[in-house]
Each structure stands twice: as C-alpha cells, then as structure tokens.
C-alpha cells in the first residue's frame, strides 16, 4: 500500500535548516580563510569563496532534484549507481589528473570532480540495498562477507589512487553493520586490532606480545571465571619463558632475544591449552588461543605493511602522531600551525577576518581540510562548540529519523549517512586539534570543494527524500 504525499510537507525541515546553516557557515569561513584585500567581495568568482557560492547553488539544485525523485528509484537503481561509481573509480585511475600525488580527479574544463566523494553515496545505497534484502540474514557469515566486499571494492580502488583518508572513511560502514546485527564482539576485536596496530608501530615486538598476552589472559578469565586456571596459565607462561630462555642461551648458546623465548612460551602454552580444549570441550577458549596467534601474526605484519605499503609522507605523519619523530618544518608543521591557530582563538575568538594564522596562510589547506582552524581561531571555543554541536545534533537527528523508518532500506541508508558523516567529522576535527594523524579528508558542508559538498548534499537529501515518504512504504 502506497500513499503519494507532497514531499515538501513531509520532508524534515529541521535537518534542512541545519544543513543550510552549516553550508552558510562554511562559506563564511572559507571567505575568512582565503580573504584577500584585493578581492573583498564574497561574490568574487576569482576567489574560492566566489566559487564556493557557485558550488552551493549547484548543491541546492542537486538537493531539489534528490527530493523530487521517486523514493523507489533509489532502491531500484542502487546497484546500478554502485556499478557506475565503481566504473568511475576505475576510470579515474587511468584518465584522472594527479593532484598532490593522488590520481583522484576528473578534470572537465574548469571543473574538477572527485569520484571518491560520490562513491560514498553509491556504496551507502548498495549497502542499504543489500542488507535490506531478504537473503541478507544477520546471523549468516555470508551476509557480512558480501557486505564487506561491497565496501571493500570501492575502498581498494580508492586505495590505488592512493587516498588513504577516504579509505578509512569506508570503515564507517562497520557501525552501520553493527546496527544491523553484525556481532559486536568482532567490532570490538577490530577495534582491538587497530589499538594493537598502533602499539605495534610504537612499541617493541616484545612489549606488543606482552600486551597481547595480557588481553588474552583477561579474555580467558572473563570466559572461564576461574582464578586457578588463570594462575596456571600465568605460571605456565612464566616458567616456560625463563626455562626455555635459560636452556637456549646457557646450553645451546643461542642469541639472547627475549622476544623469541616469550613467543616460544606462548606456543607451548597454546598447545597445552588446545589439549585441554579438546579434553574439556571449551569452544570459546579455542577462539581466544586462535585470536591470540592471529593478533601476534597481525602485529608482526603491521610493521611490514607500514614499511612497504605506506608512502613516506604517510609514514612520517603517523610517526609524528605517535611521537616517534619530530620535524617542525615538515608534516608536523601542518599540525603545529593548525593547533596554534585554533589554540590562539581563545574563548570568543579573534573575530571575523581577524585570524592572523589562517588569513596569512600559516595553516596549509586552510579552506579545505583545515577549515576548522578558521572556525577555531576567529570564533574561538564558542564557535568550535557551536559547529561540533550542530554536527552532533544533525547526526543524532539522522539516527533518530532512521530508527523511525519502516523500510529497512531507508533505515540502513540513514545509518550509512550518519556513520560516514561522523567518520568525516571525527577524523577531520581530530586531525586539526592534533588527536589524529593528518589524513586529508574534508569537513562535511564546511570544506571548500564542489565534489565533497555535492556528495554530502546528495547523501543527506536522498535520506531526507526517503524519510519524507517513510509512511508510504510498509514492508
């Protein structure tokens, strides 16, 4: 049963107003960021703020188009759009223009388009389409493998550009998966993996191994809830470690590297655990032992990956974030200048167009990836608070609306929108305030650039269109 209702009456005006407010704030801040005495007019088309006005105009057109398309079309064409997007991602690798070392742009005359941004919309649609299908059951491993492939394919294509920042954004979909029944324990494990990766990059293999063993022992205790077994495990590890080390070094004259002997001890205890697992039929403990070894292998390969796959500047940025390297004129310069700009803003900020750090180009990429610096410097803590507050309100509003959807497609899509935006905000702001490494991704609605603005507009307004007719579709 379907009812056709006037979309303008049903559409969520609250979100639209939030959207317009943020886009306008973004425009004003771009004006402040690239302001120059020779081009005072905000409508000057030679400057980024003039162009951004054009992009905003186009975005509003896109929004109107999105709102006027039949709801069913999005679901119907989801895979088609996804396929188009994949093709565009492949084409850009061949035909694209290289900017800042990434082949990520189509250049058509004056206009530059970044297919990566639109791939997020397409992937969001495809994920929603797949997970809302009857075949996709949350308790089946196959469901999550296929869903994983849906996000992995564009992610890999983007990684080839290479644009690691956008790849990371695709990880946002795991939160959507989680809402749809993806086991939380795996997500937790994934989070642990990220945590271990960071440890692996910072600490020595020996320390990493100890961290893994501590986590494993905690998990073991949580599963078994028996102190004697925990003690046996700890004592067993300790004895086999010191015993093997003593024999190897003293009698066999092997080199004395603690890491190998702790690894050996872990292996010994693993075998003993497996024997007990078979004897006592305790399945969960098998997983703990298995995952412990996976974690060991994983952390070991992290270093390999870091050394062989990441670009030097990315390695450097990560190293700086992890405090392993200091280079005030290189990668750290960006973060340092960004922090100085934001930190010097104070409570009320320096005032519109008064930010010396952003106005005089101390902050790199100030109109795109580092637009939040302008907010922080010129509007102070008040401005930062308002901007982050608007984002939280928007995100929670989208989640709330998603939960109201009767159609699984709409709900999943809504979650996709919210989690992608969240990931963008978290990474972008996190990097400007020095909490995350500098991986260049835009701040939704604020950063200068047509592609990103249009993609986020599409992302949001497709959801608003779906939401406007949430009463029409009764599954």
């Amino acid at each position, binding site marked *: 049963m379907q009812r056709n209702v006037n979309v303008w009456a049903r559409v969520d005006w609250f979100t639209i107003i939030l959207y317009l407010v943020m886009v306008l704030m973004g425009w004003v801040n771009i004006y402040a960021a690239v302001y120059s005495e020779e081009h005072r007019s905000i409508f000057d088309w030679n400057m980024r703020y003039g162009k951004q006005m054009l992009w905003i105009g186009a975005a509003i057109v896109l929004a109107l188009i999105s709102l006027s398309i039949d709801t069913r079309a999005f679901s119907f064409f989801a895979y088609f759009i996804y396929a188009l997007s994949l093709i565009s991602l492949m084409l850009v690798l061949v035909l694209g223009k290289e900017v800042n070392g990434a082949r990520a742009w189509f250049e058509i005359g004056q206009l530059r388009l970044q297919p990566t941004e639109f791939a997020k919309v397409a992937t969001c649609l495809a994920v929603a389409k797949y*997970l809302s299908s009857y075949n*996709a*059951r*949350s308790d089946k491993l196959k469901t999550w493998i296929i869903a994983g492939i849906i996000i992995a394919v564009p992610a890999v294509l983007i990684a080839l550009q290479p644009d690691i920042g956008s790849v990371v954004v695709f990880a946002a979909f795991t*939160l959507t998966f*989680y*809402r*749809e*029944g993806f086991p*939380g324990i795996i997500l937790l494990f994934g989070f642990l993996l990220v945590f271990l990766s960071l440890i692996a990059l910072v600490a020595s293999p020996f320390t990493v191994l100890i961290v893994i063993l501590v986590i494993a022992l905690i998990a073991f205790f949580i599963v078994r809830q028996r102190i004697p077994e925990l003690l046996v495990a700890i004592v067993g590890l300790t004895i086999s470690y010191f015993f093997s080390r003593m024999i190897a070094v003293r009698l066999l004259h092997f080199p004395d590297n603690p890491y190998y002997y702790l690894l050996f001890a872990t292996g010994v205890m693993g075998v003993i655990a497996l024997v007990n697992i078979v004897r006592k039929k305790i399945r969960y403990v098998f997983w703990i032992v298995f995952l412990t070894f996976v974690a060991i292998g994983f952390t070991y390969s992290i270093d390999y990956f870091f050394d062989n796959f990441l670009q030097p500047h990315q390695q450097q940025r990560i190293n700086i974030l992890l405090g392993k390297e200091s280079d005030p004129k290189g990668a750290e310069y960006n973060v340092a*200048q960004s*922090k*100085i*700009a*934001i*930190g*010097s*803003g*104070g*409570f009320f900020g320096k005032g519109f167009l008064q930010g*010396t*750090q952003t*106005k*005089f*180009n*101390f902050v790199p990429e100030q109109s795109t990836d580092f637009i939040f610096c302008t907010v*922080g*410097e010129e509007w*102070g*803590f008040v401005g*930062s*608070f308002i901007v*982050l*507050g608007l*984002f*939280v309100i928007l*995100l*929670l509003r989208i*989640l709330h609306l998603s*939960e109201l959807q009767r159609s*699984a497609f709409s*709900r999943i899509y809504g*979650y996709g929108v*919210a*989690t992608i935006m*969240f990931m963008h*905000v*978290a990474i972008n*702001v*996190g990097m400007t*305030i020095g*909490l995350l490494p500098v991986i260049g991704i835009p701040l939704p609605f604020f950063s200068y650039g047509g592609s990103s603005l249009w993609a986020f507009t599409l992302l949001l307004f497709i959801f608003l269109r779906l939401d406007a007719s949430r009463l029409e579709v009764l599954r």
Partner: protein
Amino acid sequence: MNNQFANRYYIISGIFVLVVLIYLIRLFYMQIIDTSYKFSAENNSQRYVTLYPARGLIYDRKGQLIVSNQAAYDLMVNPQELRPFDTATFCSILGITPEYVRQTIRKARNYSRYKSSPFLYQIPDSVYAAFQEQLYRFPGFYVQPRTLRHYERKIAAHFLGYVGEVDSSHIKNDSYYQMGDYIGMSGMEKAYEKELRGVKGVKIYLVDVHNRIKGSLANGRFDRPAVQGKNVTATIDADLQAYGEKLIKNFRGGIVAIEPATGEILALISNPSYDPQMLIGRARAINFVRLRDDPSNPLFNRALQSKNPPGSTFKLLNALVGLQTGAITPQSTFGCARGYTVGPVHVGCHVHPTPLDLIGGIQYSCNAYFCNVFRRIIDNPKEKNRFSAYQHWRDLVMSFGLGKKIQTDLPHELGGNIPSLEYYNRIYRNSWNSVTIISLSIGQGEIGITPLQLANMAAIIANRGYYYIPHSVRLINGYDSIDMRFKQKQYTAFDSSLFDIVVEGMYRAVNGPGGGTALNGAVKGLDICGKTGTAQNPHGDDHSIFIAFAPRNNPKIAIAVYIENGGFGATIAVPIASLMIEKYLTDTITRPWYEEYLRTKTIIYPKK
C-alpha cells in the same frame, strides 16, 4: 533483521556523543586553558623590524663638526622569495663574485628559508643608486638602510675610536644589543657609547606565512621610532690635532695637549695612525686586518699606552720632592764634572756652567745636580732609613698621577710604572742604596710613563700643584653633563709654593738667559716653559721628549711630545711642541722653516 538490534541505536549515538565530547574537552584545553598557543601565534605573524638610530654627531671644542653619519644600505635576502635572476648583472653592479652569491645564499637558506638574512653589508651610496634601479629584477632582495660613521677630516683616529659590529660577549653583557648592532669599540666611541648610540626603534609588521609584509600592527600604535644618539662636543681642537698630526707624520710617537685649567684634552696624537674612514663600511674587516698586521702598529695608541722612561723631564719631579721633603732648598748648589761619579757608578753630563743652583740645574738639565738631589732624598737623615725615604719619594711621585691610571674617560689607558719598594727589595735582596737606583734621578731605569701622564705632569706644574683628570668630552647634547670626577681638583702632595722655582727653571730652559736645553723652542711673547728629556733606549736611538706649558702665568696649554728614537729632546720634540703651542695660542706660524725641518727630517725605524 530489524528491531531486534534497536538498542544498538543508543550505543552508536553514545559513540558519536562521546567522541564529540572528547574533542570539546580538548578544544577547551587548547583554546582556554593553555595560553602557549597565543604566544606562538604572535611570533608567527608579527615581524619586528629594528629601526637603527643614527649615532650622535661629534664636534670639536670650537663647534666644528668632525664626525657625522652617512647613509649605508645593507642588502638583505629572503630565500623564500628568491627567483632565478641574472647573476652576471647582479655581480657586476655590486662588485661581488658569483661564488660569493652562491655561498651567501646557501648560508642564508641554512639560517632560515623564511626570514631575511644580511647578504651584503653597507653598500656605498653610489652602488646603491645603481642597484636600486635594477632591484625589481632581483626578487627576494631588499635593502635595509643603516647609518655609518662619516669623518669630515682624516684626523684623531685614536682619539675618536671606531665603531664595529657587536659580538656575542657584548650581547651577553648588555641586553640592549642584538646581532648586527653597532657598538663603539675604542676611543670616544667606546667611552661615550651609551650617549652616542641613541635608542633603537621598532616597527611591528604583520606578516603572512611567507614572511611577506601585510601591514603594520594596529596601524603602528605599538611602533617606536628610533631616537638619534646624543651629539657630543669633544675637548679636542680639530685644527691643533690636525696640525700636530702633520708635524709628527715622519716619526713614531705620541703627543698629548691638555688645557691645564680644565683637564680637557686639546689634542691626542699617536703616530703612525690611519684614516678613520678606513674602519667603516665593508672595507672595515679587510682594513682592520691590514692595520693590525702592519709592523708599524698603527692601531697602537701610543698616547695612552706606550710606557717609556721620561728621561730628564723627571728631574722636575725630583726637584719638587727634594724641596717638599726638605732634602734640598732652592739655594742648594752642586758641582758637575761632566757627570757624577760614586765608586764604580758614573752618570755622564754635557758641558754647561758649574756649579748650579736648582733653577740652573733645571735650566741646563744637569745630571750631576739631580744625582745629588736624589741621593739627598733617599739618604735624608730625617727619614728612618732609605726604605722609608724611598717609599716617601714614591708616594709623592705617584701623587702626580704616575705609576697608576689617571682614570681618563678614554678606554685602554695604561698606568705606567713607578717601581715599588718591594720590587727593589726583591731584585736587590734588600741590599740596595741611593746609588743602586741612581738612574731614577734622571728619569731612567724602571720608570714607565705614558705621554698622557707626561702631559698631565706639565699641566700640574702649570697649575702649580693640582690637576683635573684629563678627559675627552666637554658637552653632551649641548649641556655640560660630563662625569663629576672631571670637575674635581686633584691635589698633589706638593705645596703650591714650591712650584715657582721649578717653573722659573723651565722658563729659563726655553728662554734663557744664558744657555738652556730648549732654546730652539722659544717664541717671543708666549713665555713657554718647558723641560726636555732624552730617554736612553737599549733598542736603538734615544727617545726625544719635551714637556711644556704656556704662557707662564695663567697657562692655556700643557703639552707632552714623545718621539721614539728622536734623539735629544731638543732635536724633534721641542720644535713640534713649540709650533703646536704657537699654533694654539696665536693661530699663526712664524717659523715655517721649522715645519720644513720636520717635514724633511726622517728617522729610520727598525722593522720589528
């Protein structure tokens, strides 16, 4: 798969809120609690440009300008703004080599890519004009105006001193200075650095990340203009100084002239000298090394630093000590048999009437007379023993400003030497007597006295017993605000009444009647009183010395002339002093043949 997992809505919402909360806490810390970012921001975006003041002008005592300033331009380079440029033209305009360009740019880059570094110091006016027209062709270069000293006359190099760039020790000692500042290194420039340097100003510009100027901070509200240094009126008479320098040109030595009534230094000459203009601008470094390595040592200020035996001029002091201690009276008469002989010791003398009283002893500079005087002083029965007698002698002598620094305002003054009692006790193991140290009677031996001290000696006698500390500055910014110590009479330990006898001897030495050692120095009507000296020199010919003052009553000038290897005092020192006195007092020269004599007279100085 739908609402079975609806509670996860709260977990996901919670994650969103949590992350934003963490960020807000971080922002609160960065923007409100931690203030270090604000300082960083100011350092980032404000450029302090130092405005260098011009140093104060220096005038001579008659108001003649002797040191002024000239504009100079430091060429600065900002590596960030450099673009490829026509090196050949660039080098030919500035007169530098491409190698210099390469090296200096590399150095500037190493210092900072964004901040300017000096590229070429003190481009002369003429080059600057040519370069200015072409400046647009060399982006990244700009010109910073500075002022350099300009010397109106090529005189008084040692008196005026020179200005150089500060080094790290100056910066450590006085926080006023920064790298690249100038400071007085010697002479008046050093002594009156605080008055002459002025106050640096500052202009605060807002700059962008490329260090490009975007305007001034708050419309220049916080800018401070540079304040020019105070103008200083020196005590010297530029014409007298120049005249003295002309007369001494062929000789090595020092001349100091003092106004006895004030202690003002009228001329302070050391030769060999140099053109002060040599030690400014870009040539300074090269010229300084050249002057430093010159075997004739033109940087050595003989007037303040060469310590030599005063020769017979010292007899005046022994006469005064003899009178003061009662060892002799003006009527004490001694004979002279072409010298003075005690046992193995013989001090020679020249031919003159004998016997002589004190006035005659001074007039004819009789060695035997003063050997007797000195022995009477040391062997004075009123003294406990020879040691206390010597100590008394030394105390009286030192009250003349000898054997210690006079504490003039000019830097690098040396104190000379009057041997101490301990010194003689040590080298002679206490077994010495008046004969052992008899050479002190005629100003030989271990005594060391600088030309400044000699001149001061003349001034004391001219004043009949006191002096003002010789100094180099009369007025600061037109006001008589020099140090109080130059205003205080320094009394010697001698009764004023004793001097007239000595002055009479000095008058007769120059003017007769009869003979005299400095008769060639007499100028009719000027009443010059003087005493020659001939200091024995183990390394070569004797040094020619003359101290004098004039007129006899109410003297206007006291002078000491010290000419190394000049022979008898009368040979060179007397003509120079006489001409300078005449020049100063009458501003005319009546004896051009003397000038000619000095101009053609040469002394072969040993190459050291």
